[in-house]
């Protein structure tokens, strides 16, 4: 079970990459399950049957769920390959997906992407080499795009008034700058979804 940054294997760049991999694994599986829930249903890796809502990809949420799910899977594959034998073992995740409404599914994705966006920034102080800084950046930017995309989709569907990006004081924010989230804060938030 994964609870703190101490539990992430490795040190320095390896630790950060494993941390990233754990988050990408979670996002990838979340998108798999969310896509099942909104479309034709299916069984998650725990064997739990998820009934589908029979929406299709003419809906923006379904379309981007599939698109970004592929991206997160590729991030995961890339990191796992880069780490080789040092890679953290994959987990299984229970999001209670079978019981979530469409809005709850989207809120969960938004929260996961938003957390992932801040998580990469929060991990920067642990990096050692510029090469991995730039690689982490190349992934992080896509997480930021995903976050903005789902904020916009939720606004369109449910009129939530979510901001697509950090705002300034004129709109109740600070300096319009993304806020890094420390690893242990991130891991505490996601640990509840990890079951094995």
């Amino acid at each position, binding site marked *: 079970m994964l609870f703190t940054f101490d539990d992430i294997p490795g040190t320095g760049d390896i630790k950060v990459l494993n941390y990233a991999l754990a988050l990408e694994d979670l996002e990838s599986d979340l998108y798999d399950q969310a896509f099942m829930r909104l479309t034709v249903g299916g069984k998650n890796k725990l064997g739990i049957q998820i009934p589908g809502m029979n929406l299709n990809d003419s809906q923006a949420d379904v379309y981007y769920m599939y698109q970004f799910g592929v991206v997160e899977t590729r991030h995961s594959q890339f990191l796992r390959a880069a780490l080789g034998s040092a890679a953290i073992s994959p987990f299984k995740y229970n999001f209670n997906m079978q019981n979530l409404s469409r809005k709850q599914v989207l809120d969960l994705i938004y929260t996961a992407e938003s957390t992932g966006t801040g998580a990469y920034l929060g991990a920067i102080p642990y990096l*050692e080499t510029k090469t991995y800084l730039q690689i982490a950046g190349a992934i*992080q930017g896509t997480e930021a*795009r995903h976050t903005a995309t789902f904020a916009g989709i939720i606004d369109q569907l449910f009129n939530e008034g979510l901001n697509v990006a950090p705002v300034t004081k004129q709109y109740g924010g600070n300096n319009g*700058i993304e806020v890094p989230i420390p690893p242990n804060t991130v891991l505490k938030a996601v640990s509840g979804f990890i079951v094995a």
Partner: protein
Amino acid sequence: MADENSSGFFSGQTKSSPSLHSRRNLMRLAALGGISLAGMRFFSPKSAFAASPASSGLTGGSTDGATQFAGIPGDTINEQVLNFALTLEILESDLYRQALNIASGLPVDNALNINPKVYQLKVGGGGLNAASTQSGYLYLKQFAYVESAHREFLIAAITAAGFAPAQKNPGGYKFPTKPQTDMKSILTQILPLEETGVRAYLGALPYLTDLGLAQVAGSIYSTEARHSAAVSISLGLHAGPTPEPGDLTVVPNPVGTNTFEYYLQPRTVVAAAVKNYFV
């Protein structure tokens, strides 16, 4: 505004200054960014980072910084990267101001009003549907203030370090093609600014040797990526990243066009900015 630089584009005067690479100045920088010091293990031994110690600095990376940031003021590479970012934020914030004025039916030279409520959409969609026209205009307003805040943040940070921030281009800035008075045309002109901003920050990132600055730069970069996605979607385009001519890839064999962000070399960005946007 006088331009003291022989290049005619970047007029920040260099003067002897303490390095930004000091704990005190980084703490100021973090505070300015609203970034929790507890989140920056680099400064705080009692930080929220409870695990193994953070590394003390970044190693490796490109060694051609002197070439990449030629003409950008700064005594150290970290300072040059910050002034590179500032140069782009000055440009971006000015063009956002112009775009917001155009979309609001106001004189293009009007300063950014401190009150966003004075701005009301006065142009049509130009082919965008009503929802995208409205969301696009909201983004234009919000991001105009954000880019302005990024500019002020960087100026304050550079100044706090006792260094001279890069200055506005004396002639000002223009869009390569003047936007028509509709949201589609305006956002179409805005999008390349954001997409280039993303590529510029990612290209400059591996020149920083300082973890605290890397985190700050990353935190601004992240917002540019969010803006790029939001503006793209308003225009009916994919959220991206979508490859563009000249794009460089961080990962040698990208397995999908939208799997990793693309980047540009800093000198390429500067040359393009000057060519396309400087008056």
